[in-house]
């Protein structure tokens, strides 16, 4: 069993291999390389499940409340040595790792299968699969990383691949713009990752080992200021990667990529990476922001950012016409839940939410892909090209509904259990304000998903859905949908009372000693959040299905109209970023640079040029022409003269050589005799 855990490095290695194989041989294969990708992810998935089983059957140590399983820290090789520090390349396997491995490989496998049909006939089909494999391996490298440096490696691979995949159809300007926006926005945050990793490296007495850093942070052996700096810097990276307010603007634009990519980005890789980083380095955040300490006054930066993100993103989801953008803002909002959960000390709940969210969000995205593939003729506009698709696409409809309800958080389905745990954590750790935020968010989530389901599948068929012939998608598309919807239905039960597979025992070792609280199911919270979700669904149902309420009020009331425009323009954040910040930088700085260029740099450059020419002239006239040439000519001349003298004795006749030899020998002998006799 330990062999499996120690060899978990195979799981990221296989997709890397698959990437290489597809790039070099993909085009010559009968299915253009997709079979390699599907097979590689299939193997990785099987290995991940085996690893998870090996982890759960690992013998726990400790007593009662302190019971935990030792993580497997396995060094593979020394990556490089620097200033007396050996930087090792190794894997770290614990409950968090195996959870993520399972989620990532499963979702990626289904996305690969889905793409074989969805991307059929695409001009860069092979490259698409290659990038998909590399993208997955980036996330797998991140989750198996033993050191923060390896995390950077996986993190950057994902950044690159997301750029490649979002801009997959780069011939259209909008798509390549979206790819650049995603890349630059996350890059802004990535600076934080480099800074944070460096700060923690020195604060933790020159080690990159993540488990070691956590341990030192929790022991209180690190200076609090260094911890605070490191944690803040890392959190900036998380804000960028996990699309938290105020850097969330790239994620909805990332919908420009093919739908399977959106599913992968939103469910298993990329955005989850940020949440994973907080979860993995939780000891650092826990100590730095005093999450569990008395007198934290119920606030800390992580929870605040998470809370803001939940609300603003959920509000934006109401005004979107593009089905994928609704789902994108929904993801942003759910990521807010995860981050807030980590911020309020509900570590298990947040990780569990990553787990359940992956299934229903991947299901929703693939469902949206199925709708556009077979129902709305490649359009994603719910208001123009959808509606009334329920009877044409029953499988897509029912899986979509199951996933939506799971997202809304009705009992037994996945989202209910995980969201509930986060709310429970917020409530019992004294973060009351965030409990309220979470509940409001839950109601909004339920309502906008009702709207989304209504606009897509109910009512009158509009646009493409009416003009073309909608039909159910082929099995390569519906198969993954059914699998994901089933998991969205039942995966929450893994942490239901009496079957708590997620928790201190399975997930973490370091935190077992740190007093990070563990919460158990509470009927009060469960009932409350169910009620709230039902309220949201009812409101959405009445408004959209029954057409009750003051429709068209945004047209009549100026205040509400302004609110709508404010939402529709995404709080004007993009305007702020592109026009004010970038525009502000674009104007004055180039002018200043130009002035500097003309007056200072040119002066220096010209001065250097004139000086260099004077020096060069001197060198040419005096040194080169006289001294160097003189020496060269002199050497040549003397060699020629010497040669013509010596040429005479080189006459080729053996006896004259012998005569010279005898002569020399005789003279030498005479000289020797004279010297000796003195």
């Amino acid at each position, binding site marked *: 069993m330990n062999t499996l855990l120690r060899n978990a490095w195979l799981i990221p290695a296989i997709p890397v291999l698959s990437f290489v194989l597809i790039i070099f041989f993909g085009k010559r294969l009968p299915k253009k390389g997709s079979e390699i990708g599907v097979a590689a992810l299939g193997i990785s998935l099987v290995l991940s499940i085996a690893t998870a089983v090996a982890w759960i059957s690992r013998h726990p140590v400790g007593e009662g409340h302190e019971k935990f399983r030792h993580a497997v820290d396995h060094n593979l090789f020394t990556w490089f040595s620097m200033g007396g520090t050996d930087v090792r390349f190794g894997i770290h396997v614990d409950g968090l790792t195996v959870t993520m491995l399972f989620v990532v490989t499963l979702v990626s496998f289904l996305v690969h299968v889905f793409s074989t049909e969805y991307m059929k006939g695409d001009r860069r089909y092979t490259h698409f699969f290659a990038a998909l494999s590399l993208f997955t391996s980036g996330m797998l490298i991140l989750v198996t990383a033993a050191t923060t440096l390896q995390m950077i490696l996986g993190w950057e691979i994902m950044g690159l691949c997301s750029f490649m995949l979002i801009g997959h159809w780069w011939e259209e300007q909008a798509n390549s713009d979206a790819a650049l926006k995603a890349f630059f926005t996350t890059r802004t945050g990535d600076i934080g990752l480099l800074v944070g990793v460096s700060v923690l490296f020195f604060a933790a007495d020159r080690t990159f080992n993540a488990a070691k850093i956590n341990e030192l942070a929790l022991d209180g052996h690190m200076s609090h200021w260094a911890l605070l700096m490191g944690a803040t810097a890392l959190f900036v990276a998380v804000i960028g990667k996990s699309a938290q307010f105020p850097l969330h603007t790239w994620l909805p634009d990332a919908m420009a990529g093919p739908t399977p990519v959106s599913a992968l980005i939103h469910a298993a890789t990329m955005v989850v990476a940020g949440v994973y980083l907080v979860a993995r380095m939780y000891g650092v955040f826990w100590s730095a922001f005093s999450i569990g300490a008395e007198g934290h006054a119920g606030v800390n930066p992580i929870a605040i950012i998470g809370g803001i993100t939940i609300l603003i993103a959920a509000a934006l989801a109401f005004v979107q016409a593009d089905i994928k953008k609704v789902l994108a803002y929904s993801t942003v909002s759910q990521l807010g839940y995860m981050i807030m959960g980590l911020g309020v000390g509900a570590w298990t709940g947040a990780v569990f939410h990553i787990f359940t969210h992956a299934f229903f969000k991947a299901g929703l995205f693939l469902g949206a892909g199925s709708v556009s593939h077979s129902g709305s003729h490649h359009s994603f506009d719910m208001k123009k090209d959808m509606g009334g698709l329920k009877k044409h696409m029953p499988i897509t409809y029912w899986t979509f509904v199951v996933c939506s309800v799971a997202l809304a958080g009705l009992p037994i389905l996945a989202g209910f259990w995980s969201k509930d745990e986060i709310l429970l954590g917020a409530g019992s750790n004294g973060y009351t304000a965030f409990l309220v935020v979470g509940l409001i968010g839950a109601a909004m989530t339920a309502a906008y998903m009702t709207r989304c389901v209504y606009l897509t599948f109910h009512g009158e068929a509009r646009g493409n859905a009416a003009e073309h012939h909608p039909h159910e998608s082929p099995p390569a598309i519906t198969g993954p949908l059914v699998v994901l919807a089933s998991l969205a239905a039942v995966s929450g039960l893994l942490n239901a009372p009496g079957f708590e597979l997620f928790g201190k025992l399975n997930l973490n070792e370091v935190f077992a000693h740190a007093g990070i609280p563990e919460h158990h199911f509470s009927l009060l919270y469960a009932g409350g959040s169910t009620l709230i979700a039902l309220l949201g669904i009812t409101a959405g149902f009445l408004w959209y299905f029954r057409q009750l309420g003051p429709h068209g009020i945004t047209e009549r009331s100026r205040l509400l109209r302004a609110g709508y425009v404010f939402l529709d323009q995404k709080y004007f954040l993009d305007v702020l970023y592109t026009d004010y910040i970038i525009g502000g930088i674009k104007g004055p700085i180039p002018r200043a640079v130009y002035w500097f260029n003309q007056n200072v740099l040119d002066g220096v450059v010209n001065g250097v040029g004139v000086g260099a020419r004077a020096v060069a002239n001197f060198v040419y006239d005096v040194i080169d022409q006289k001294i160097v040439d003189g020496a060269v000519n002199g050497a040549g001349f003397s060699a020629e003269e010497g040669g013509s003298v010596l*040429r005479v004795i080189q*006459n080729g*006749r*053996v*006896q004259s050589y*012998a005569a010279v030899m005898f002569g020399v020998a005789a003279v030498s002998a005479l000289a020797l005799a004279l010297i000796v006799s003195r």
Partner: protein
Amino acid sequence: MLLNEFLFLAAFLFCVGVYGALARKNAVLVLMSIELILNAVNINLVAFAAYGHLIAGQVFALFVVAIAAAEVGVGLAIVLLIYRNRHSVDLTSVNSMKG
């Protein structure tokens, strides 16, 4: 014992050998002259050995005889090849190494 007679004989033979090696045009005669030079040296060695009762000189003379035999073997082989190529053993015509 008189040493001088032996030394005069050796010097005479040496001079004859040097003259032959430098002045004769026939390659075989040049080789023979070189033998004379070597034997002049041998006489010196043996004479000094007998004069000073040192066995080393005689042993050294034996070495010289052996080396001379080898040298003549190689030298005659070279002469033979020169003859095959040029049908003459005239050393003045062998000047292809002229610079």
